[in-house]
């Protein structure tokens, strides 16, 4: 479904991605883990075309991401951003139904609102939230609204960038559960970036660890605890000692 082949990306002298190879099967939930600044978000942004890789090839559904109509390509994706990335100037329901109010997927105003309210309900938010503005919501509610926006147009592929960062453990658990339920229910392919090992175990079918610009380890989530990889072991157990330098 999604394939990255030998992806390189540098910012000045900082060589962030040094040949990333990764594949995600249709309907699979892949979680990418790795230390801060290892290029996890950059890898996702390369797939979406938000960042252009220096070299390498990315294909989605067998087609190169640089060919074909860009709007049609992006219509297949939903993304939950780390901070929610909700539009401050729009009420919640217009954030959720953004895609349905303009462009190729445009629907009548009332229908778009009804779909947005239904998606809000799906992520556990009441209809009265629809007319509030993002600044009036708590962090957890903003994440849920971001999640509702990501799934509003029923995408084939959903990206989650640090979905539980900044949330308390209970709200993090709620978001993890929602992500898992929604991905299974929609049959979507999912890629998630997180440091949170609880999220990894709740969301992942497959795990990939990005370290030093390459995929250090990849395998099913069930193999996480007996991988035999010293980098992965150090990361999942949060040890300061090991092959990954604590001071970067």
């Amino acid at each position, binding site marked *: 479904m999604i394939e990255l082949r030998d992806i390189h990306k540098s910012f000045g002298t900082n060589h962030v991605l040094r040949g990333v190879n990764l594949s995600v099967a249709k309907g699979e939930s892949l979680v990418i883990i790795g230390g801060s600044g290892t290029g996890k978000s950059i890898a996702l*942004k390369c797939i*979406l*075309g*938000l960042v252009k890789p220096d070299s390498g090839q990315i294909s989605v559904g067998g087609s190169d991401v640089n060919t074909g109509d*860009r*709007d049609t390509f*992006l*219509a297949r*994706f*939903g*993304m939950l*951003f*780390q*901070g929610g*990335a*909700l*539009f*401050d*100037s729009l009420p919640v329901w217009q954030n959720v139904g*953004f*895609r349905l109010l*303009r*462009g*190729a*997927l445009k629907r009548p105003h009332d229908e778009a609102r009804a779909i947005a309210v239904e998606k809000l309900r799906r992520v556990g938010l009441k209809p009265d939230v629809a007319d509030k503005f993002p600044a009036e919501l708590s962090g957890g509610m903003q994440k849920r609204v971001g999640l509702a*926006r990501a799934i509003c147009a029923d995408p084939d592929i959903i990206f989650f960038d640090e979905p539980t960062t900044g949330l308390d453990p209970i709200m993090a658990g709620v978001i993890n559960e929602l992500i898992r339920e929604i991905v299974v229910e929609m049959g979507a392919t999912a890629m998630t970036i997180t440091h949170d090992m609880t999220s990894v175990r709740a969301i992942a079918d497959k795990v990939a660890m990005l370290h030093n610009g390459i995929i250090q380890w990849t395998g099913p989530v069930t193999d996480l605890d007996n991988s035999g990889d010293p980098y992965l072991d150090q990361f999942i157990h949060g040890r300061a000692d090991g092959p990954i330098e604590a001071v970067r």
Partner: protein
Amino acid sequence: MTLTRPIAVLGGNVLHLLAAIGRVVIFAGQTVSHLFRPPYYHREFLQALVQIGWLSLPVVGLTALFTGGALALQIYAGGARFSAEAVVPSIVAIGMVRELGPVLGGLMVAARVASSIAAELGTMKVTEQIDALVTLSTNPMKYLTLPRVLAATLAVPVLVAVGDAIGIFGGYIVGVTRLDFNAAAYLKNTVDFLEFWDIASGLFKGAAFGFLVALMGCYYGMNSGRGAQGVGRATKAAVVSASVLILAANYLLTEVFFSA
């Protein structure tokens, strides 16, 4: 090595400046090109029109009112040196519509609008809202930049026109109440000496200044650095560059319109 170093530094700065000018010109070209390529976001355009035009009216109006009044006092005092006090109405009118209306109006809009656009778009950039727009199949240049630039280009000439009228009124109030001009004669002198091109040139300048103000706000906002400091720098750069460009463009346009 030591002798060539200043030349290298100078060359580096010149190249840096040329690259920056090139980036702004490309950004302006991209913005204008979206004017001819749908989709168009009418709601965003109308919101920008209200924000830039309607909400700038008080500050532009007050600036013009006080400037017109001060101009009348200055011309009266200066004109008295060679017994030319009678020219106050015509000079206030011509000065306001040709120069002070568009330039001061443009500068006030630069302070109010370029800063707000740069801060808003810069914040959107650092909070990934602009990336979110792209993932929602929406071109940020079409959705954010074009509505603001178009609204400013259309709204600032209207603001200038209103500012001109208020400025002339400021001169009239001072002329009649403080300088003992006859009210009817003041108005007649104002109207008789104003020509169509005086007004049209000022409005044209207003359109150019509006374009520059919004363009600088959008350019620096969309290219803002990370964090609060990055947004702060973008805001400052937008206001400074818009103000300098207004003054430079004003000189060039005056040369084009009025040089013999």
